[in-house]
């Protein structure tokens, strides 16, 4: 076994997103030397600071952050999600597929080269998986529980309340109070106890969304003041991003960081792993005892399949998604007010015998009206007329189905490029119909009308929840990983991001990725330290 003196690092972590930083802490705390690399894309446009509605009324240069000096939003006019048009997030998404040699075939494939990864632009939804949901994972639920706790305490989560989703989210013991709710969603929540029995029977449960947003200040990060800039980036840093943890890690002894280094190949030989990549100074290679792949499901899967030269397609999971709009007629004529822009209410929905859907509701205030107008069968002028009057009394919703409902695959092809393909399974269409019917009926009970034409099913991959392409198995075969994310067929390479989840339920999965990375790193820390002391 290679001793400490011969290698510069014990562990190389590829990627500085939620998975990468979560894996780094236990290793650093054990005294190991960690090198973290990422794509190094940094933002060129700062997020707005101030109250969204004030800025919109008075900031003459608002087009800098709404459209971008380089017209980023117009360049991305075909992109599937409003987030992809936000100039402050341009660096989060730019160049990912090109640098990581990923080709998508009729599938929305998104990833990040930015420090902090996709968490720079995420919806901040957090949830723990229940023991049932962890049944297909070859891990002890108690280990996961411990990791969930440690990660939640580090990142800061709010939304804890005693409601019908407490068990579903499973993290209230570590959560702060929720962000104050807006008047529209408050009215939905107020009616819920009255209709609760009936709704529960139909499979609909409602509660506050558990989100990684601060309602209590933490160090330099300030608490949410409902300024409504969530889509555009939070100048107060109330929304969790892995860059917060990355910053903390950089002051820790034993932590090394190389930004702007895109990894092209990972190989294992004689007890050491070599990570080859390309940085600002040209091609380079790093060596360590272990490498943890945390580059995001797509990029990590490419590196892993390349490392074991696995050329057959591997399946991937991705949650079919739909969006809809609720109208609360009582609130017609209301004027827009400052509000939190991410999930305030969430629901779980039992569809059929064993399909559980999940979704959240959002205030419309911070989202450009153009984003709604583009989906409306109206001319531009009358579309704006209508939306300006209608939107203040509307609530936006989304709904996710379990990831197994998408038949997606990843295949390493010519020139080691990764081809992503995926379609929805046949049952998605009827399940979405059923979801629409159930949501329509449930929200009518709560005083809201689901605008029928607003219910739109997204394209495969539009959820950007990709997972389980290299799933953890108790007895893994090539193309899978063991209970510690170690890739079968080669030693020393661990997959610690979404790729190694064993299954992807409909609920938000980021926290599970982080907890799993934390769990694997805790185990590795013990193993590597034990080897060291035996040497």
């Amino acid at each position: 076994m290679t001793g400490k003196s011969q290698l510069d690092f014990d562990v190389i972590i590829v990627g500085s997103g939620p998975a990468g930083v979560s894996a780094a802490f236990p290793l650093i705390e054990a005294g190991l030397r960690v090198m973290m690399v990422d794509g190094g894309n940094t933002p060129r446009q700062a997020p707005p600071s101030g109250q969204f509605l004030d800025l919109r009324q008075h900031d003459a240069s608002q087009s800098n952050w709404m459209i971008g000096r380089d017209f980023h939003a117009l360049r991305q006019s075909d992109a599937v999600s409003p987030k992809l048009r936000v100039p402050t997030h341009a660096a989060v998404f730019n160049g990912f597929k090109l640098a990581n040699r990923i080709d998508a075939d009729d599938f929305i494939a998104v990833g990040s080269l930015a420090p902090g990864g996709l968490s720079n632009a995420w919806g901040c939804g957090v949830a723990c998986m229940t023991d049932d949901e962890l049944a297909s994972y070859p891990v002890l639920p108690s280990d996961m529980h411990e990791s969930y706790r440690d990660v939640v305490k580090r990142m800061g989560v709010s939304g804890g309340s005693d409601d019908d989703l407490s068990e579903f989210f499973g993290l209230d013991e570590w959560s702060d109070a929720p962000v104050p709710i807006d008047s529209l969603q408050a009215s939905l929540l107020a009616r819920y106890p009255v209709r609760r029995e009936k709704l529960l029977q139909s499979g609909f449960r409602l509660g506050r969304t558990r989100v990684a947003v601060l309602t209590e200040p933490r160090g330099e990060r300030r608490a949410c003041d409902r300024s409504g800039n969530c889509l555009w980036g939070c100048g107060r840093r109330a929304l969790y991003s892995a860059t917060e943890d990355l910053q903390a890690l950089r002051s820790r002894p034993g932590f090394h960081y190389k930004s702007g280094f895109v990894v092209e190949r990972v190989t294992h030989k004689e007890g050491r792993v070599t990570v080859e990549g390309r940085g600002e100074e040209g091609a380079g290679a790093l060596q360590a005892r272990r490498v943890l792949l945390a580059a995001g499901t797509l990029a990590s899967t490419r590196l892993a399949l390349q490392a074991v030269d696995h050329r057959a397609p591997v399946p991937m999971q991705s949650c079919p998604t739909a969006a809809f709009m609720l109208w609360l007629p009582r609130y017609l004529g209301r004027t827009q007010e400052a509000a939190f822009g991410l999930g305030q209410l969430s629901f779980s929905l039992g569809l059929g015998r064993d399909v559980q859907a999940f979704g959240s509701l959002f205030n419309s205030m911070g989202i450009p009206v153009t984003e709604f107008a583009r989906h409306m069968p109206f001319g531009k002028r009358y579309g704006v007329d209508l939306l300006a009057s209608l939107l203040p009394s509307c609530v936006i919703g989304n709904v996710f189905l379990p990831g197994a409902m998408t038949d997606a695959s990843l295949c390493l092809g010519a020139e080691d490029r990764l081809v992503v393909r995926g379609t929805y399974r046949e049952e998605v269409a009827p399940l979405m119909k059923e979801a629409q019917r159930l949501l329509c009926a449930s929200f009518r009970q709560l005083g809201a009308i689901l605008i029928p034409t607003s219910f739109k099913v997204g394209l495969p991959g539009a959820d950007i929840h990709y997972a389980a392409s290299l799933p953890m198995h108790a007895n893994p075969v090539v193309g899978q990983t063991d209970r510690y994310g170690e890739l079968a067929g080669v030693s020393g390479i661990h997959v610690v991001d979404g790729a190694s989840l064993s299954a992807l339920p409909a609920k938000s999965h980021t926290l599970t990725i982080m907890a799993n990375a934390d769990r694997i790193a805790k185990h590795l820390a013990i193993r590597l330290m034990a080897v060291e002391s035996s040497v």
Partner: protein
Amino acid sequence: MRIAITGATGYIGRRLVRAARLAGHEILALSRRPMAEPGVTWQAFDLADNLPLSLPEDIAVVFHLAVKTQHDFGESSVEQDAAQRLIEAAAVVGAGVVFVSSQAACADAPTAYGRIKWQIEGKTLAAGGWVVRPGQVYGGAELGLFGLLCTLVRRLPVLPAFIPTPYVQPVHVDDLVDVLLACPAQAPSTVLCIAATEGVGFTAFLQAIARGRTARRPVSIPVPTLLIRILVKLLGARLSSRLGLDRLLSLFALKLMDTAADLQRVSVALRPLGAGMTRSGRGRRELLVEGRVFLTYVLRVRPAGALVRRYARAIEALKSGRALPLPELMQRLPALLALLDGAGGIDDAFRRELAWRLEAAMMVAEASPQGAGRFLGLDRPGGWWRGALRIFWAVSGETIRRIGQVILRPFLSRVGRRGAF
């Protein structure tokens, strides 16, 4: 690749050098005077010197643009000889030849100019080269024949309106240059006629110069072409040539070229004359008008100047930078755009471009204090009944718009069919 250009310091040559450099080519300028530009090397070349010519080995294509500007009668073989030397030198290093000919090129052209071009065309094609016959080249710096016409329009108290009207087929110099650079991708021994598909009256062309380049709006007076012909006869060939009258004869003899198929072959869309004639060659003024119309349509009030400029910049940065051919009436009454917005039965490319631009206008409009009032509904009082009334009006407006689109379909389907954008 590395390309050689004769006449690189001329009217078309300079634009070709610029475009070729932007496309990443290395350039060897073959000209009498050295050319001091970064990325351009120079080799002396004179049509008249009759010295042996050898080209560097790495030259892939030779663009032959050089012409003799002074017509010395009786010595007309100079241009053919020079072309011959060039074609042979190109063959030695295995380079292709692109020859810029003329619309006047013809075996029995009325002018020596046209006959010489015809002969050089033959040599070029025999060597497997490409021949481009441009129509009336215009735009950019005021050089060459275009420069001469600009000077005339500035100086002449009145413009001649020849009877019968000679027609020219304009082509913007930058569009021509795009075609030249696309030649090597075409089959060898190809002739490409490049100009507007339809002719423009010569006087209308001069008026377009006046509109685009001067503050003058000169009056035209009719001049029978017969008068010029008689004058040429009286003055004799040499003197008329010196006065440039033979060029007029050449103009009167121009036959319309069929250019549609060739334009399609090289997939170049020519910019409209009005847009190309402006100094930018891009029609910023028209684009600003378009921006104002689209933004007014979306905002319902006159947009701030900054928004109009931002819209124009966006179209210049991301699209062709040219205004769409909108009916005059819609330019005056932006509300009428509602009829065109998403209308069926109109040209597909135009419909898509219009949809993209209207959405861009919408995003530009929204991202402003003015847009915040309109889009977020902050600029008017709230209240349930007011809200209900506004929704009623919006739906009514949309319904009327749809009915209007059905009724006016035959008229709307004509919009946007012509013109590049």
